[in-house]
């Protein structure tokens, strides 16, 4: 037997250790599945995904065609009906100006959803572009972009919003969106940068580089698909918080301004009358909360599907 002992101590040989066989969840290697396919399978099993998805679909429909469910005019108000409770044809009652609360609540979806979606698009594009460049090229560009995003991070978004929007005196969807993109992109950039750096260090990406793949090919084929998942997750959740932020800014009187119809404005006006006419506050506040909840729930479901590790 000495020869075997010699041989083994000399080479430290191991039993052919089939590391592929996991102790428990074997049978998951049966077919290769893509991340997107896997995520979709996971999502399609979640009731939360369907509930939030349907809600969002509904919101988008009434944001585009509010007249489908509300025949009145949100700006047609009758002071004689100020703060009246629900009556026939006006299930939510009237606000201080005598406007129909139901109609205003329905019409309020448009600007909220528009600001939310536009801001998300803008911030995601700008953020992933800058963050991606910083992560991919590193060096000087990384330092520069990181510093700029740190500066923007130094200003709490609500504070910056109050200062900026009060100076610009805009009050339109465009200005509010512009500002929110301006302060929102660093969050996405940070995620994108991290994701790109992680993807870049993956062995197979290194291998692709060693095989002579060019920058464009590297970015499009290898890095982008890997960085996409975390960005989508953060963006979906951010959409909800952007809508919430818009309402907060409008509430403070620096966001959207009348004659724009916004939940934030209506809540702000109702807040002084909470003792006399709580219904004025309740409906727009409820609509706003449900909207934000829908987007955050969707974001949650997407995150669970794309990043099983966090479950």
């Amino acid at each position, binding site marked *: 037997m000495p020869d075997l002992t010699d041989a083994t101590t000399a080479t430290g040989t191991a039993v052919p250790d089939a590391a592929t066989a996991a102790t428990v969840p074997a049978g998951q290697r049966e077919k290769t599945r893509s991340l997107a396919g896997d995520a979709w399978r996971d999502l399609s099993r979640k009731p939360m995904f369907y509930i939030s998805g349907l809600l969002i679909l509904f919101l988008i429909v009434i944001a585009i065609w509010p007249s489908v469910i509300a025949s009145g005019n949100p700006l047609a108000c009758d002071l004689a009906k100020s703060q009246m409770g629900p009556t026939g044809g006006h299930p939510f009652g009237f606000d201080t100006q005598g406007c129909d609360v139901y109609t205003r609540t329905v019409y309020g979806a448009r600007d909220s959803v528009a600001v939310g979606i536009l801001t998300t698009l803008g911030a995601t594009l700008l953020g992933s572009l800058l963050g991606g460049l910083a992560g991919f090229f590193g060096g000087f560009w990384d330092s520069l972009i990181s*510093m*700029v995003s*740190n*500066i*923007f991070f*130094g*200003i*709490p*978004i*609500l*504070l*910056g919003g*109050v*200062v*900026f929007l*009060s*100076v*610009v005196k805009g009050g339109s969807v465009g200005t509010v969106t512009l500002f929110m993109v301006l302060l929102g992109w660093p969050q996405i950039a940070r995620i994108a940068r991290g994701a790109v750096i992680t993807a870049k260090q993956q062995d197979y990406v290194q291998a692709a580089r060693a095989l002579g793949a060019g920058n464009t090919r590297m970015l499009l084929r290898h890095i982008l698909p890997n960085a996409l998942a975390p960005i989508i997750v953060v963006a979906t959740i951010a959409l*909800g*918080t952007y809508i*919430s932020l818009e*309402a*907060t800014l409008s*509430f*403070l009187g*620096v966001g959207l301004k009348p004659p724009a119809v916004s939940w934030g404005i209506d*809540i702000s006006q109702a*807040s002084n009358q*909470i*003792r006399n006419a*709580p219904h004025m*506050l309740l409906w727009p*506040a409820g609509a*706003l*909360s*449900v909207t*934000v*909840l829908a987007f*955050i*729930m969707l974001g*949650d479901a997407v995150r669970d599907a794309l990043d099983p*590790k*966090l*479950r």
Partner: protein
Amino acid sequence: MGRYVIRRLLQMVPVFIGTTFLIFVMVYALGDPVAAMFGDRAPDPATAAQIRHDLYLDHPLPVQYLHYMGQIFTGNFGKAATGQPVTELMGQAFPVTLRLTLVAFAIEAVVGIGLGLLAGLRRGRFADSSVLAFTLLVVAIPTFVTGYLLQYFVGLKWGLANPAVGDGAPLGDLILPGIVLAGVSLAYVARLTRTSVAENSRADYLRTAVAKGLPRRRVVTVHLLRNSLIPVVTFLGTDIGGLMAGAVVTERIFNIHGVGYQLYQGILRQNPPTVVGFVTILVLIFLAANLLVDLLYAVLDPRIRYA
């Protein structure tokens, strides 16, 4: 460790300059402070020019900025719309907001970490789902909505707390606003703690701790919590700025005369010294908090300290 601190301090400098400059530009360059002073009346051109000169507004922007920062570092923040020095307003406002922020911070940290730990340790069970649903609701309902609802129900209808905060902002009156202010952050802390605890409870070193025969309490507090809190502490620190900014909303709901209130007045009355002054101090606090977090981070995680 010393080098780490110095490096962090140096990194803070450009961020401080950049942030304050950004605010400065927003207020002074995009707005017209002189026109704002006169309200709707058109100012006399000679007087306006004189004021511009006095305020350094006839110089290029960077010079204006340097002048302003020089003034700030000598303690001169200018005058508010009422003619009071801005520093005087700060002396009144900051203690109030600081107290409110501390109350909120304590609620956020204690309740948030507690809930997160509970959920993380009972992953997938009822307690976990309840905490998740609760945090989802809290995040989704905007602060000003919860603020008014709590004020209406707890303060007005049930009379459990003072719906408005009295003079001098006594601590008892600040609990309800503190809960409102802490709300969203609390939810984030709970979720972050939950994720972190869930991840770490699967770590090898935790298995070692159990194999060492340590009592469960010790395994959780010394080994699990210590590691899990590292990302949570980071969030808590960076959130101090967020809380102080969120005070703008909370202070308005509960009629608290703190930083948010003064800032809001400054904006309504278009008084740049008030706005820039308060925001500059807030940014400084924010950056200081971040530095503190970094140091704490290094204390908590030796891998950072020796990196």
